């Protein structure tokens, strides 16, 4: 043995000697000390039970999937790695060949619109097929591999024959297209290795799909959630139980306690950029940030918070100050709601719903009042416009709280719906027609999230804050709404419908405070064409 080896052995001997006063420390070097008073058959029974526990869920899964004729998920892996790439390449190749053949027919160019419509109808499914690599991987429209397909589609839609021919030529040599065995074999192999055999993306997607469709998971998940709710009042990953039956949305709380870091500057930049784009079109922008429920009612969330914290947690107020400094018009609902909540008579009269993230009648009415006050200060507001009179009609509606819905507890526990007071807005007149958006007449367009949707397009309809704002201003409005998507999706919607801005003087952009961090699709720059 080498000198170092001897020194090491000597050292280990010293150390082990030092460890002797600690039998548990010394135990780690001891092997073969396992023992049991149990008989052999007990151990065999235990091992068998373990194997059954491991194997039965898979067997159950395969049996169910076969019964439901949905295909066996575990076999998708094999199929997607062997057969699917070839099938897709072949389908795409056939599709491109067919298109080329159709366009090469004599007289095709002279057939006019009908010919183009038919070609587009043949192109669109091809484009969609190209997106779907296999059961678990779908290419994004912006993916570089989709670019030739998108270019071809655009050329067809623009009826540009020279570009169509160029695009089809490129598609024939696209790595995903099978056009004869010899030239395609290498490309197909590359595609197969990249997309299937050695793709982390595919493996994650397949694993995720397998877990999601698991019968055992679907059976056991609600049972565990039920048990945790009954034992610990636990609402799962989305909800937090507050005081006196109130429930809160966890991401909203997380937003309030995390620092306002660099990523959150992006919303402000996006808002200023949007304002600039609207300004170029002679349209004003008014930003309405709806406070989170826990910002207004912190003491309902936890007894450690006192009512005087209302409006002071989170970064909504700070963001509004920054926006004002950047020249953006804003409505301060933080101060307004903090004042309003002092008028709470009882729990049924609060600004927000107990088991939902949204507001009640009082909240939406106060919001529409505050917004109306600011709108009236715009110079163009006094210009002559079509005025409409509205009346209100009291009603009630039953609502299932969204926090409990998101917690998925309803699968095993029946929660009573909450009856909520509402006021529907009707056009004054003998017919009492419920308020409806009027895109042609409206001077104001509202972009919003679920706070704009609740009571408005939900039951009882025409009782949301948009209707109440219309009543306040005595004029019809227009709106584009996207649940959770007020940060980007709703602007993208607007960009796709530029005609909506025609005749508008003001865009009111409503979103909830937590969207500064958690808005769907983030805060992308969206160009209004």
């Amino acid at each position, binding site marked *: 043995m080498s000198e170092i080896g001897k020194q090491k052995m000597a050292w280990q001997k010293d150390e082990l000697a030092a460890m002797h006063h600690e039998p548990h420390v010394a135990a780690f070097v001891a092997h073969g000390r396992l023992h049991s008073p149990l008989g052999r058959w007990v151990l065999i029974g235990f091992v068998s039970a373990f194997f059954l526990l491991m194997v039965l869920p898979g067997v159950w899964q395969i049996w169910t999937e076969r019964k439901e004729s949905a295909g066996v998920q575990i076999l998708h892996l094999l199929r997607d790695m062997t057969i699917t790439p070839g099938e897709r390449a072949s389908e795409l190749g056939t599709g491109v060949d067919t298109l080329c053949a159709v366009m090469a027919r004599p007289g095709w160019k002279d057939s006019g619109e009908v010919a183009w419509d038919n070609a587009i109808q043949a192109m669109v499914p091809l484009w969609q097929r190209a997106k779907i690599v296999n059961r678990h991987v779908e290419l994004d429209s912006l993916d570089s591999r989709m670019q030739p397909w998108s270019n071809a589609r655009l050329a067809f839609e623009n009826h540009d024959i020279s570009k169509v021919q160029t695009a089809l030529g490129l598609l024939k040599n696209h790595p995903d297209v099978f056009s004869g065995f010899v030239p395609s074999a290498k490309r197909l192999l590359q595609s197969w290795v990249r997309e299937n055999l050695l793709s982390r993306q595919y493996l994650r997607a397949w694993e995720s799909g397998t877990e999601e469709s698991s019968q055992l998971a679907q059976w056991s998940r609600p049972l565990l959630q039920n048990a945790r709710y009954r034992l610990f009042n636990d609402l799962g990953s989305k909800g937090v139980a507050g005081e006196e039956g109130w429930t809160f949305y966890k991401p909203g709380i997380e937003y309030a*306690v995390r620092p306002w870091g660099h990523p959150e500057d992006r919303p402000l930049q996006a808002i200023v950029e949007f304002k600039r784009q609207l300004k170029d079109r002679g349209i004003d922008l008014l930003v309405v940030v709806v406070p989170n429920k826990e910002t207004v009612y912190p003491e309902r969330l936890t007894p450690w*918070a006192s009512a005087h914290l209302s409006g002071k947690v989170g970064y909504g107020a700070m963001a509004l100050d920054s926006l004002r400094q950047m020249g953006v018009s804003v409505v301060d609902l933080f101060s307004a709601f903090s004042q309003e909540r002092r008028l709470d008579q009882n729990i049924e009269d609060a600004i927000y719903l107990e088991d939902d993230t949204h507001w009640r009648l009082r909240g939406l009415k106060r919001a529409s009042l505050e917004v109306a006050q600011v709108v009236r200060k715009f110079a163009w507001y006094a210009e002559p416009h079509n005025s409409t009179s509205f009346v209100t009609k009291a009603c009630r509606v039953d609502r299932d709280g969204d926090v409990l819905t998101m917690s998925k507890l309803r699968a095993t526990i029946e929660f009573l719906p909450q009856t909520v007071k509402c006021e529907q807005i009707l056009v004054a007149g003998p017919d009492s027609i419920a308020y409806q958006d009027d895109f042609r007449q409206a001077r104001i367009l509202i972009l919003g999230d679920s706070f704009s949707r609740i009571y408005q397009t939900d039951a009882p309809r025409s009782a949301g804050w948009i209707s109440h704002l219309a009543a306040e201003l005595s004029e019809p409005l227009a709106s584009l709404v996207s649940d959770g998507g007020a940060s980007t999706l709703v602007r993208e919607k607007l960009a796709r419908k530029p005609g909506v801005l025609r005749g508008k003087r003001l865009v009111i952009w409503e979103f909830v405070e937590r969207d500064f961090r958690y808005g769907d699709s983030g805060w992308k720059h969206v160009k209004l064409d």
Partner: protein
Amino acid sequence: MVFSSHIFIFYFLPLVLGVYYLMHWRGVNIHWMNLFISVTSYVFYGWFEPWFVILMFGSTVVDYAAGRIITAPGATIRRRNIALGVSMTSNLALLGFFKYYMFFMGGLNHLLGLLGAGPHYYSILAITLPVGISFYTFQSMSYTIDVWRGDAPPVRDLRTFTCFVALFPQLVAGPIIRYNTVANQLERRHHTLLRFVSGIVLFSLGMGQKILLANSAGQIADSVFAADSPGMLLSWWGILAYTMQIFFDFNGYSNMAVGLGRMLGFEFIRNFNAPYRSRSITDFWKRWHMSLTTWFTDYLYISIGGNRVKSKLRLYFNLFLVMFISGLWHGANLTFVAWGMFHAFFLISERLLDKKPFYEPLPLPIKILLTNLIVMFAWVLFRSPDLGHALEFWKSMVGAREAMAAAPLLGSLVFEPYLVFCLICAVVLTQLPWQAHDFAAKITWPRLLVATVVLVLSLVTMFTQAFNPFLYFQF
């Protein structure tokens, strides 16, 4: 693949065990069984990122060849040294490139930025760290060093060596196995019913530690560490949660690894031994991540003279160096280096006092408490994204930083009854005199029952949790 995942538990594991024992039952040669384990281990590893399998195989082949050259009949000392050098260089280069390239280039750019060369003087490649690279490179290096020293016989069969490096139970997060501790088992294994049952029990307990305790504690720690300024009470609650999370996460993985090893007929060394019952930092390092500690002791500390040096100053330097490198091994970030040096400071101070802490005269529970407080302060460095964050967190812990207005709201997240219950259970379990290893050493009816309940509860809970990899995967 992750142990605590659907695909591993319900598909991979039963399939591997089934085929393995079928081979055993049919009397297949051990080398073919080793090859089977190697192939399944490559599938297991490739599941994270298929391309990295090539990297691991390359490293394995280099070390296997180095071992053969070192032990070749008539090999000169020069040739033996060159072979060792090639093995060490290739492993350290692999580790250095994938783990430290971005860290050092970032640091270099920062330095050049300060000298006025612009903040992005060198463009830096974004490199994905191969999972478990720190573990398998250390394991592989141990082989060539042991063979070079003459402490272990060389492997003659590549299938067996591939099995040693890739062995899936402990591949990605340890325990780090030295070749000389498993050399015999790679040639001959005892598959007994009792060992298999003990493996199931240990695997079940490890799974419970990860899914029921570590993940719950992790929710608290993540919320507190992500918060703006949590205040004193919540900072302590957060670091307590992280202290539990890292132990039960890593110890859970190690227990599952040892348990799976037993199911396949292997016996790996124990990685943890009630570290939060330590009475000093010296004691803590005899109980925490023991496979890494002994690796550093055998291959680094002793190689540079260990504690048999003439000068005390040199001894302290040796200790400092080992802890510095241990910190760097954990991650390419100054926080890990600082964590290593923080521990080095206390280890050296205890050496000055004859391996005793400055609070030695106090009663045992107080000694344990004070040791844990030091360890918790050090974990702040380990958990924080940068040194600035760690400093702010320390300030919160000692009450030198005012809590944010929203701190009570944070309380609602981290004092949820279920999480509090799990954290209390975790704290209690760390203070029990017998741990999972001891529990699985003797198989009785109540223990089988406990293991079954823990396993079933863990599996059901697994379905309600999002993907939650082990903390030590990042190292």
